[in-house]
């Protein structure tokens, strides 16, 4: 797919951007009733998960034992789980209504979390992407949400280095981005298989963990790590990638997939190199039919029409990464403490925002 980047398109894009990215539509709304979000953060030496509203009002904070990454919620939005950033091993579950003590649980020895998970089976199970690092394979840890998040088993992620995961709109497929990168805690963040990476997107049967369909990438794109994603109501999975190869040969960083369909690639034209080979977050706004990607390396967020792939908005900002849908567009956050259009220094926000 070729994105039209004519000057006219860009002009249209900016007017759209003003109404959306970084400009909460609730700007004039009363505090109560503002949309709520959850995100991991760091403040000084402390880490936590925060619930904020679109006006940057910090409503709740929950301490985390270490640096968090993403937060997931059950279908009611009452139960939240924050995951440790890789190679962390803790997760913290919170019941927003009961006000009970957060429940801290861990993945087993020889596994670490990748920082993402989601609830399945009518909220009874929590699935988390994990690294079976002694064997260098990806797994999905299964935790019983009705029994203190006891780990009851695991499925294969059908690839190496599973990162983000989403559920299909019909609730039948778990879709996992197997980034392809093998790491091991004994070697810090070093990628151990750069010469043999096989990134993929796996559609997995949510009933039994079996593989329904696996999308691999062309050989020239072996170092294109599929990483973060979101899905539209009609099942189009937008995947933001991170390139581990030579910058001059960077493939498209935004791809989309659907069950039974060919991969789509989004050529962002002159904007592409400005992502610096790195997409940190992907978010879909279902109501508006838009998708946004962010690059904290490139200090850039790009908003596209989800159907046509046309670029319709941009936002520049230092270390911009967190992004979540908001009426009319998206709200973004940064590692420098910006949340929407509010500065909350000395808080630094982690890569993702969950809209509650």
């Amino acid at each position, binding site marked *: 797919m070729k994105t039209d980047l004519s000057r006219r398109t*860009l002009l249209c894009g*900016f007017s759209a*951007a*003003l109404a959306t*990215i*970084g*400009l909460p539509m609730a700007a004039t709304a009363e505090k109560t009733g503002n949309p709520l979000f959850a995100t991991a953060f*760091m403040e000084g030496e402390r880490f936590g998960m925060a619930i904020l509203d679109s006006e940057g009002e910090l409503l709740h904070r929950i301490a985390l034992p270490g640096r968090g*990454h993403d937060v997931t919620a059950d279908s009611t939005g009452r139960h939240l789980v924050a995951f440790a*950033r*890789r190679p962390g091993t803790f997760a913290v579950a919170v019941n927003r209504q009961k006000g009970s003590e957060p429940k801290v649980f861990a993945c087993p020895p020889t596994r670490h979390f990748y*920082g993402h998970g989601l609830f399945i089976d009518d909220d009874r199970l929590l699935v988390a992407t994990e690294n079976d690092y002694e064997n*260098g394979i990806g797994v999905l840890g299964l935790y019983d949400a009705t029994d203190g998040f006891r780990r009851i088993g695991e499925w294969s992620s059908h690839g190496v280095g599973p990162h983000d995961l989403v559920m299909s709109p019909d609730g039948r497929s778990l879709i996992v981005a197997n980034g392809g990168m093998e790491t*091991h805690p*004994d*070697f*810090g*963040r*070093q990628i*151990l298989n*750069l*010469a043999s990476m096989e990134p993929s997107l796996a559609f997995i049967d949510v009933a039994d963990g079996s593989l329904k369909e696996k999308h691999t990438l062309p050989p020239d794109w072996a*170092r294109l790590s599929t990483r973060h994603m979101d899905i539209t109501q009609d099942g189009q999975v937008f995947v933001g990638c*991170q390139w*581990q*190869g*030579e*910058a*001059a*040969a960077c493939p498209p960083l935004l791809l989309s997939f659907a069950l039974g369909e060919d991969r789509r690639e989004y050529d962002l034209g*002159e*904007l*592409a*190199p*400005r992502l*610096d080979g*790195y997409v*940190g977050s992907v978010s879909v706004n279902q109501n508006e039919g838009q998708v946004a990607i962010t690059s*904290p*390396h490139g*200090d850039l967020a790009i908003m596209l029409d989800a159907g046509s792939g046309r670029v319709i908005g*941009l*936002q*520049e*900002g*230092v*270390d*911009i*990464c*967190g992004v979540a849908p908001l009426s009319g567009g998206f709200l973004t956050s*940064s*590692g*420098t403490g*910006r949340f929407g*259009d509010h*500065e909350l220094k000395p808080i*630094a*926000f*982690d*890569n993702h925002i969950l809209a509650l």
Partner: protein
Amino acid sequence: MTFRAFAIVAIMAFGSMPFVPASGRAADSSDAAVRAVLTDAVENFFRPGYRRVQDRAAAMGNAVEALCTEAGDERLQKTRAAFAEAVSAWSRMETVRFGPILHQNAAERLYFFPDRRGIGLRQVQGVLAKKDETATAADTLAAKSVALQGLGTLEFLLFGTGAEEMAANGDSFRCRFAEAVTARVEATAATVANEWSEPGGIANRFANPDSAYADFRTQEDSLRALLGTFTNGLELIADARIVPFLGGDENKARPKAAAWWRAGLTGDALAQNLGGLSELYDEAGMQRLLPTENSNLSSEIRFEFANAQRALSGIDQPLPKLAEDEKDRSPVAYLLIVTRSLRSLFAERFAGAIGLVAGFSSLDGD
């Protein structure tokens, strides 16, 4: 009007989005000064450094050829010495992870490490056991696993189990395999060196960035790559070269997890890893990037590099074995501390001084 400028103007004009200039680079590091640093990095370090790897690989190839023509202990020793020279030249450039070294797995072709599950070793042993003749010609070897084509394979052939065969029989399968591997190492090194020498190629794009380039559009892009050689390189040295064999204590030391343990070159390679970065800092004249108020930082950086070299020069035994002894391991533990301290100096202080601090979200890419 360029697209980038247009974007910034448009956003600022409406003033409704939080906008912070993407580039906070120190005002006193002028374009010309930055260009001088980038150019010197190319001319004084990247180009000669990669060419040296190629030259040392060629010399090693000659030594292997001589050994295979007329085997003998003396020639094996000469070949081992030539191998050490090649390892030394490579180790000096090893921490550079941008540009042509990322192309076609060049870094892994030159040295497949770490090899946590022993994949490369098993493949080498498999070739030797089967006497796979396709591994004895450079062109057919090129199509095989990258783990078979580099210095790690040569290390096993020259120093591993059965290496004495090289001194006894020049016409051995092992010797012919070694000849093919040296040819592959030289070819890979030549490709990387040639790409750095190509007019209008990576060197020009790096030193004279332009918005038309996909890789280096601004000087900030080039500076990030240059600085990344230090921050990522020092992280690689700490996490993938020292920690794996040092372990948390003497009981967790794993001498055979060290790079080049068979050849006894662990310490020398580490000295070259760190020495290469020190050389890059000086040869590029990176102190010129620092604002006056941060000029002391260069002294601190040089002091720490000197500490690292001093720690290594005081050790006269193979490093991996030392790690198993509570007292003897302390210089290696100290080297790890110095390496991490150097990383902090670059990642936090140097980057901050020149306005390139990576934010919380972009650190530790995830």
